[in-house]
């Protein structure tokens, strides 16, 4: 077992993990942050996307030991003081989810997209940037609408 420490959603955390423990397992099983989902075993679906040191990554495809010392933001870190993040609010408003399984990853990918490309996003850019996030329910149309609206309100 290796001792690791991170800052997760602004809070210092530590734990002991096996080398094979994935970041997503550490978040869900050690820290109880079950908002981050696992939807595949091929690194394709994006349900597990979190931000590590400011960039969006698939937490199912990163070793927890390799993230020792990192700053991590999960979907639980988006809302502040009991108030939804503008991107979460936009998903609610525009029906950007049905079952909600892909939503944490969609939100984290969307916030990362705004961080990189700004608040004014056209439909083509959003669809292109969502190549790493798969949704089984919505047909993407309302997700794209929600991201466009949420970006403007960020």
């Amino acid at each position, binding site marked *: 077992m290796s001792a690791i420490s991170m800052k997760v959603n602004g809070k210092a955390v530590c734990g002991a993990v096996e080398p094979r423990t994935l970041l997503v397992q550490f978040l869900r099983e050690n820290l109880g942050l079950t908002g981050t989902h696992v939807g595949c075993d091929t690194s394709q679906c*994006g349900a597990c996307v979190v931000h590590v040191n400011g*960039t969006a990554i698939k937490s199912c*495809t*990163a070793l927890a030991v*390799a993230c020792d010392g990192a700053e991590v933001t999960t979907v639980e870190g988006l809302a502040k003081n009991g108030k939804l993040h503008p991107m979460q609010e936009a998903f609610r408003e525009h029906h950007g989810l049905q079952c909600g399984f892909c939503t944490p990853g969609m939100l984290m990918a969307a916030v990362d997209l705004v961080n990189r490309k700004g608040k004014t996003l056209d439909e083509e850019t959003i669809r292109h940037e969502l190549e*790493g996030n798969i949704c089984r329910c919505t047909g993407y149309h309302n997700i794209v609408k929600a991201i466009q609206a949420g970006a403007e309100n960020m």
Partner: protein
Amino acid sequence: MENFIYHRPTKPADAVKAMKDAADGKFLSGGMTLLPTMKQGLAAPSDIIDLGGLGNSGVEVGADKVTVKAGTVHANVATDKGVKKAIPALSALAGGIGDPHVRNRGTIGGSIANNDPAADYPAAVVGLNATVVTSARSVPGDKFFTDIFTTALKDDEIVTAVEFPVPKRAAYVKFPNPASRYAMVGVMVAELKDGSVRVAVTGAGPKVFRVPEMEKALEANFSADAIGGIKVKASGLNSDMHASPEYRAHLVTVLARRAVAAAK
């Protein structure tokens, strides 16, 4: 995933030594190929030697050469202003790999060491006449990719950088697999500063290959029409649920023509 011993060396020599000492070690860079493979039980190394601790990442752009350190992630190659100016075809290629999250982790060193037949970077390495620099030597791009998922690397040899000569003009065009974004076929066309032309094809065969007949035609006349009648043979090309060898052969000419038209 099976357990393993985890190493995070900070010096290349220590990484090489850790590999020599390991029963069945594997280097780890972005993990975007190795970790899914391990999760599915297709690989179970005794030791993982994480190259992330080497801090070997970044690009250097000179007048004649762009050097990309092996640990540079695709997102950085795609967005680096210097690369965009010197070799726009290279930044476009990097920006078309997988998806944003894959590009934030996957590295050029991992990509070429893995030599997936559908990977994009091999077309850049061969098409731009790049040199692969390793912990032991320099290997010309043409000699690096030896067979499907196989390279000239020894087991304890690390890719440290790739050096791309700045071409006169170049473009990379791929037909992405709609699900994975890997290249069903991808073609890099480059006119180098000495006037020679290279046409490198990935995704179509077991490994990247050049099309000498097209190169000769383009050296005489750098236009899409010069290669319209040149077809590669379908026999020996990849066949899977996505495309037949005949279709891939057809795509090679179509994409090569588009790359010539787009070269800048």
